[in-house]
């Protein structure tokens, strides 16, 4: 099977994630969508690595996972503290600051 298809899939996932960020309200889901985008990137990296026949892409993928994990830590910390304050995870509630 042509590895290029994996690229299409990656692009698709990335787009789904991006759109998800735009349409979903729940902060957690939003955040998961971002993670989806990151994973799309990973898929793309691995595919390219395969195409080029060098390992860089895969190594980068590992880095990405670590970074993603770190992001989860920070992100959840923030989101949870907000949730405890407002008893809601909807990002639309956090709009005290505008204009």
């Amino acid at each position, binding site marked *: 099977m042509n590895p290029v298809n994996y690229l299409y899939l990656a692009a698709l996932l990335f787009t789904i994630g991006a759109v998800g960020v735009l349409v979903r309200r729940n902060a957690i889901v*939003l955040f998961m969508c971002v993670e989806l*985008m990151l994973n799309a990137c990973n898929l793309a990296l691995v595919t390219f690595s395969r195409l080029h026949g*060098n390992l860089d892409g895969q190594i*980068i993928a590992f880095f990405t996972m670590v970074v993603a994990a*770190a992001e989860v830590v920070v992100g959840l910390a923030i989101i949870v503290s907000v949730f405890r304050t407002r008893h809601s995870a909807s990002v639309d509630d*956090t709009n005290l600051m505008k204009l």
Partner: protein
Amino acid sequence: MTGMTLAAAIPPIPAPHIEYLQLSPMLAVFGAALVGILAEAFVPRRHRYATQVGIALAGLAASFGLILYLAQAGYATTKADLAAMGAVAVDGPSLFLQGVITLVAVVAVLQFAERRLEPRSGAGAAVDAFAPEAAAVPGSDAERRAATSGHATTEIYPLTMFAVGGMLLFPAASDLLTMFVALEVFSLPLYLMCALARRRRLLSQEAAVKYFLLGAFSSAFFLFGLALVYGYAGSVQFGQIARVVEGTATVTPALANTTGNDALLLIGLAMLGVGLLFKVGAVPFHMWTPDVYQGAPTPVTGFMAAATKVAAFGAMLRLLYVAFPGLAWDWRPVLWGVAILTMVAGAVIAVTQTDVKRLLAYSSVAHAGFILTGVIALNQHGIGAVLFYLAAYSFVTLGAFAVVTLVRDADGEATHLSRWAGLGRRSPLLAAVFALFLLAFAGIPLTSGFTGKFAVFQAAASGGAMPLVIVGVLSSAVAAFFYIRVIVLMFFSDPRADGPTVAVPSALTGTAIALGAVVTVVLGVAPEYFLHLANQASLLVR
């Protein structure tokens, strides 16, 4: 990462060669951060404040000293080269920006350490601008208890150190992966620091959420761009990418089938651009700036506004000038558009702002536009001008936000402009200093703002971007309007009876403001030496 093919037989793994000396500035900061964490764990609470401040300052001082040493030793010019297997570039721009960042960080830490402004806690302990216990729900008993017992989130210092470390690495990063990692390393701590305000915690948390979500969003774009560029070039090392783009690299047959496809390259470049433009706060990726600047604790805002811009523009310069000079004809027009949009939108929207911090946020957007004109210049002057502008701008910004921390009333800082009416009558000195900063923002001659603006515009003009210069000039006329408005408010309108009080700061904030003012004037009146420095440092290694 040296490429090695699966087909080859297993040779002994070559140990990577690391130039520790060249990397030492960053190592010093990261070291300080780690020590800070340990201190957080082991030092008893009442000593933590002193210890942490000490560690942070020590680390920064060491880093700055090392930077100076490296510059002295010629690593900025003659010995400039790639370090850590081509992952990090130690050259003029890196060292210059790292120097600026460390200085900014020092000033920022001084402000973080300010404990004279907030009223003492129930237990009589002096407290700083940060939440006593970030985890506690605002308004809950837990928080109240923490407040009365005079707790303090001393974690702020290690976080700052990590952020600074990332920022030091960001403009020096010489391959996309390092750049991505550095981006995250300095972003994640900032997200947290935004959430740590002592007053108005809801705003603070909201700022954190917004900053975090959007930041993550943008870094996802950056990463996808990275992937695509890797797909095109088969490498993430700037030099290699540049060679592939120019077609001077030896193209392996494996590369051939992707290299043909410029779409990969261009889309990748655009998406990398999104990540960086988000960090510098360029239109239309600027919308986080006002909210985050307003919500975050003011000292953090100052630090963020100054240091992030410096780091991000440094990275942008390196990316565009080292990795994609071959694509100048593709990205220049786009940046033209972004720059114009940023300058105009920033200036125009700021006109109707009513909150000092939001006002400064939009002005920072406009300034991002001005700096972009320098980036677009695409010549030696351009780099030097941008470096100088960043240095000048960051200190003005720090000073301005430091002043904001001093104008307070019962519930913390009085940031609504109407409350600033007649400040000039109440405390002329403070008002005068703030006026100085505003004039620098407006680019009035004899302030650093003017010199910087002149430098970038001049570079842009000689780079053939005269229209940009004219747009820039007109939008700075608009911008001048709202800076002037604040000055009018402070000096020519009558003070309100219930007006805010101006807190008398300790030496810490005092130093911050004084430093800001001095730099503003010196860079305005006698910029020769610093321009020289910036121009000397304007050579990027590949």
